[in-house]
């Protein structure tokens, strides 16, 4: 299966090698998407995650075709 992966803000800059799409066979959770996409860089505690545009915890499951995003705490407004 394939998962679309997106990084935003400082994470995008810190993950220049981060893959935007991964072959996700064997990947079951959001955290495992991070490991696969970043070649196993440790996910910092303050990283937030979303699946298909909804905030999700890092231990939530992922499915074929999902869009998974990683980003720092939000600072809008």
């Amino acid at each position, binding site marked *: 299966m394939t998962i679309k992966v*997106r990084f*935003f*803000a*400082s994470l995008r800059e810190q993950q220049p090698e981060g893959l935007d799409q991964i072959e996700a066979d064997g990947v079951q959770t959001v955290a495992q998407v991070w490991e696969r996409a970043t070649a196993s860089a440790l996910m910092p505690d303050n990283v937030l995650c*979303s699946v298909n*545009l909804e*905030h999700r915890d890092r231990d939530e499951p992922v499915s074929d075709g999902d869009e998974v*995003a990683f*980003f*720092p*705490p*939000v*600072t*809008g*407004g």
Partner: protein
Amino acid sequence: MAIQLHETPFDPAQQLAQFEASQPAGSVGATASFVGTMRNHNEGDSVEAMTLEHYPGMTEKQLEDVIEDARRQWDIIDALIVHRVGDILPGQPIVLTAVCSAHRAAAFDACRFLMEALKSRATFWKKETLAGGETRWVEKNTPGH
């Protein structure tokens, strides 16, 4: 109910005038609004410019959710959120929230709720360019209460 993201500067007074003009005549008794503007200093440093990044698709959905949450909690007539994205200069508006209702308590409460909810939830990220040219990501929002 409306949300807008603007790549270029917007005029809060004009947006507010349109918002008020679009309401049914005579039913609105109270309109509360808030404008967040870019300052030329932050955390003790001079700031020359800012870039606001967002997550297209997710951000709009979150702003719509924030307005829906406000509608569930208060008896409001209409609500508006306008937010800048992209490159912003000091003095330019970043965000406008506005709520109209029959009575003022709901308008005040819901308008403030919109701001606090969008600041804590919506996927926007600020990157500042300081006076010397150095850039930095803003790490957290200031408290609203």
